[in-house]
């Protein structure tokens, strides 16, 4: 029987240091993607609250009068009807003294 010769050397696989770093970088970036998605998802989650808040501040800056004591309709209400803040009518209609202790029997 003829004696066989085997070569057990592995097939040559050459990878430079640069290639290794590049491929490794891509793999890690793919692994990190879901984390980025989750984080941006959480950041976006409450964006509507921010948007509504901004909307109201825009309404404020757009207003011609921006202070409550400058509201002419309120001052007219006081001159025609309720006199002034904390007047007798104001106390009766705009204030309450009915806060209650709800644990009291």
């Amino acid at each position, binding site marked *: 029987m003829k004696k066989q010769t085997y070569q057990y050397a592995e097939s040559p696989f050459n990878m430079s240091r640069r290639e290794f770093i590049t491929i490794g970088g891509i793999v890690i970036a793919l692994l990190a993607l879901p984390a980025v998605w989750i984080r941006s998802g959480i950041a976006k989650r409450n964006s509507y609250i921010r948007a509504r808040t901004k909307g109201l501040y825009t*309404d*404020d*800056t757009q207003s011609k009068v921006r202070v409550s004591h400058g509201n002419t309709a*309120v001052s007219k209400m006081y001159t025609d009807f309720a006199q002034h803040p904390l007047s007798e009518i104001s106390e009766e209609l705009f204030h309450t003294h009915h806060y209650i202790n709800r644990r009291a029997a």
Partner: protein
Amino acid sequence: MIVLDKTYQKGEYPGVIAIDPGLCKGCDACRRHCPTGAITGMFGAVHSIDIAECINCGQCLINCPFGAPYETVDPIDMVISKLKDKSIMVVGIIAPAVRVAIGEEFGLPAGKLATKKMYGAMRKAGFEILDNNFAADLTIMEEGTEFIQRARHALFNEESEHGHIGPLPQFTSCCPAWVRFVELYYPVLLPNLSTAKSPQQMAGAVAKTYGAMHVWNKAPVKIFTVGIMPCTAKKFEASRPEFNSAYQYLAKEGKAGASASYPDVDAVLTTRDLSTVLKKMNIDLAHEKETDGGTLLAEYTGAGTIFGNTGGVMEAALRTAHKVLTGEEMKPLEFKKVRGFKGVKAVSVPLMDKKYDKKVTVNVAVVNGLRGNIKPVLDDVVQGRSPYHFIEVMNCPGGCVNGGGQPIQKNGSSWLEAAMPWFAWK
């Protein structure tokens, strides 16, 4: 339906939110948003709300991924029937935070300011407009004056013409969930709450007295006031039996027009409810004409409109307090330090009190999101070591713009409901 519970007065809605056991998956999301721990049930088991502890804020409702919590008070059909009754004038009291959120129900982007479209749509539906921002300005006049009175009493021993002067710090009283929270958990601090009613209740009282007599010339009994609120707790607030001051005032003058008492605010619609009303009447808000409010009571200022944001009440109050104390307008008007989403925001404001010619430093704090933020602040006040003079508290994180009655955002944590049809077993 009325089950009287010991933490409710006679006539009040005993809790306005309940959990549908058929929809609850026991995921505990609601528990992580509940400010009082009123939700009971083990993880994985069906949860339920203990109405004795609940302050009706609705945070569980807007944050549930399965849409299990629902409102037990539904005035939609009643309001529509009143709108169709021509003998009755329906007055819509529009809260500030509604105008930047209602558009979401009609396909407009979140935060789109839709005041004029809303006026247009509501007037088409038959509402008269009373902008609650008008009442917010009125609140600042009343609550701000009250604060100056309390501060001058504490600092300079000034006495009032009539009535008792409350202690400092003064808490705001606009948020009905917060008021009920104090009534339930810190009754010792009740004297510190501002006696000023919330804008909604002031608006109701104005509509049926001044509005009836001077603006609309209508009998008060023919006026049906509807609060349009970003809030579920407002439904509870309007049902509080003491809030019939318009009736009491008119009865004294002999002008009440009815022998039975009527409330200042007859019904409350949340932002979601109003969009349902408009949709049932085939009105598409997004494509409505832009109109004005039409009455004197729809006039409002920038200070009134920021009430819907956390820090807004404080900022508006400081603008007016600055004018009253120093005689000059605040410059700049924006007070950025009370803005933003931090749980507790504290600022010191140096002011000159012209009347006494003395410098005073006003320490203010703004709390939003009761859960996790309020306890240290209140414990300091109870123990008498709180540095603050004026504290604004809003139950919901971010203020009323994130209230329990606002449109539910699927990109919030309620996204699961939208994703469910994709699964075969659903």
